[in-house]
């Protein structure tokens, strides 16, 4: 549409060697397309999580006390710890994006690795929590102890495992893609330093983190 490589963006994708796909007019159009595509994708994710959060809100309203009783078996300290871990991972991701724009290949890779490590810490803590829930007999369909946790409490746990499960799945996908990106950047696979690709990856990662920022109070803190 408009003139190629506006000055503000010169450091990101204005370089001559950046690959331009044949069907785009210029790099700016290519960058705008990627960015809009990612935002549109994230809007589908909002609706995806929105559907199950909406359903959970209905259950909350119908069976408030049971939900509170169930929630009290979760450890808010572990949840808070994980929230902090994810927020720091978002910082690492933001730094990776910045480094890739400045074409600092080494720093880009290092910050991507830091993001992977932090994301894995989150998953490890989550796995520990799930294991703990299992030993308490809290997993619906597998070993839920209806006598110890009577009434509608089982509904809370159905939603808890669904929500944290699909969130963790998003994390795993994110980590795999970050790992692939880190290798590609290390091998100088992207002609433009991968700035656009890493920026899009960053948007995804921040989104997944924000989802957790909502899940934490909704699941862990309803009783407090």
């Amino acid at each position: 549409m408009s003139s190629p490589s506006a000055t503000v963006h010169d450091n990101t994708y204005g370089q001559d060697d950046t690959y331009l796909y044949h069907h785009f007019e210029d790099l700016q159009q290519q960058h705008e397309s990627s960015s809009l595509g990612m935002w549109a994708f994230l809007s589908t994710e909002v609706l995806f999580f929105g559907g199950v959060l909406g359903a959970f809100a209905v259950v909350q309203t119908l069976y408030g006390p049971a939900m509170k009783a169930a929630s009290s078996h979760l450890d808010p300290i572990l949840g808070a710890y994980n929230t902090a871990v994810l927020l720091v991972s978002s910082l690492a991701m933001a730094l990776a994006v910045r480094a890739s724009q400045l074409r600092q290949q080494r720093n880009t890779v290092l910050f991507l690795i830091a993001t992977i490590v932090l994301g894995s810490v989150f998953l490890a803590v989550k796995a520990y929590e799930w294991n703990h829930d299992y030993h308490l007999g809290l997993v619906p369909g597998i070993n839920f102890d209806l006598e110890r946790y009577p009434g509608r409490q089982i509904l809370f746990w159905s939603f808890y495992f669904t929500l944290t499960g699909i969130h963790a799945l998003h994390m795993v996908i994110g980590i795999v893609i970050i790992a692939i990106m880190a290798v590609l950047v290390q091998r100088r696979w992207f002609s433009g330093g991968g700035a656009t690709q890493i920026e899009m990856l960053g948007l995804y990662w921040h989104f997944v983190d924000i989802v957790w920022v909502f899940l934490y109070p909704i699941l862990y803190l309803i009783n407090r």
Partner: protein
Amino acid sequence: MGYLGADYTIKSWLLTTDHKRIGLLYMISITVFFLLGGAAATLLRLELMTPRGDVFGSPDDYNRSFTIHGVFMVFFFLIPGVPAVLGNFLIPLMIGARDLAFPRLNLMSWYIYMIGGLFTLYALVAGGVDTGWTFYTPYSTMFSNTQVIAAALGIFIVGFSSILTALNFIVTIHTMRAPGMTWLRLPLFIWAHYATSLIIVLGTPVLAITIILVAVERLFKVGIFDPAYGGDPLLFQHLFWFYSHPAVYIMILPSFGVISEIVTAFARKKIFGYSFMAGALLAIAVLGFLVWGHHMFVSSQSMYAGMIFSVLSFLVAVPSGIKVFNWTATLYKGSVSFKTPMLYALGFIGLFTIGGLTGLVLSTMATDVHVHDTYFVVAHFHYIMVGGMVMAYLGGLHFWWPKITGRMYSEFWGALSALTVFIGFNLTFFPQFLLGYIGMPRRYYEYPEEYQVLNVMSSAGASVLAVGYMMPLIYLMISLKVGKIAGPNPWAASGLEWETSSPPPTHNFLDTKIVTSGPYDYELQEFADMQREVQEQGIV
């Protein structure tokens, strides 16, 4: 030979990133699913010829058959139909772009579509599914002992294919327009696909999560929807219809785009009320998200919620009405020529109007209580989905066939098929309005004697309809070999897609297009000259 002759190997088709070739891959696949769905429908109509069950061994088989029919038609034909075939082919051409914004993603969405389709096919062959395409809980989660999970997974997967296609369209329409192609110069076909893509992007993920919840409930026997375990079956219906009402507009809005292009081109007149037409598309996309409760009037939803959904449903009829009025106004005093695409378009306008008006009967709470879950509803949605979407798809296919293949089809057979489909359709589905009105419920395989006459009429009509659908399959194939060479613009139509050769070259245009005016300037002398020229050459 343009994009078709770029390379002849199978690999060059299966690994293509050319939007035009991907459109053709979709065309073949949706046709296969349409035929499978149609075969199931044939069995249903055969069964309903007599009041007793005789064709199917048991009511269960009948249930499996209407589920196959509904699932294939809705998720694998109606929803992808116009966008994935015509949209894929035409959007870049119409806005003067060389391809969609993400060509590889486009190819991937076809593969995802196929994987979803094969999954569903597997489910339906290995035991079938008996829940209907609506998968109502708790039947689908706790009671049905058929392949619910496999089928639901197939639909989940194919949803991603829609999402990726829609995302591609949104980005393409935003960022890939040729210089001078401003928003108010976009063909209405593009507006229609833009509005549709918004609905797909915002609606489909809700269906995806609903399917996950159904699978969780079914696998782990937890009560999200089953009241026996404390769940809420209405919750399922709310989530399902939050997607599935907008989904009916996913099926019909692209058709509105097709019809707008055809009506102006064959009335030789500018479309009446362009900005209203574009606005109506967006209004439908927004309002469509606010009316899902009209499927739940008798489901113990609160009376006040019902009243609000009822009023909001009337509101949707306003932009739908605008469309019909504006097409009619475009025809008024136009120099109309009744070529095959126009015959299909006129059929569309008539049948969509009947479907829309009966929609109002259904959104009036008091009358809906009477006809809910009867053949009246079946007739209503077939008038819109089959009378609407399928007519528009066929109309569009004929209109752009010369562009897609470079050849003209036989006008005689084309006109005959349009007529046969129109007559067959009405014979099949009009009796169903009457059947529903006098109380025949849907989804039963036996019925009292009184209903037989109308059912036989409907089945007879269905065979006429089937003949109508088979005809294009044959003469369009024949046209590939013997059709007249079409030239770039056989209809003397406006639009960038007609300014390139037929079939277009792989990169669509040899030069960069610069747009200086809005669409549909048919009153200009230039178009009259163009029309005289093609007529003199004897192409149409």
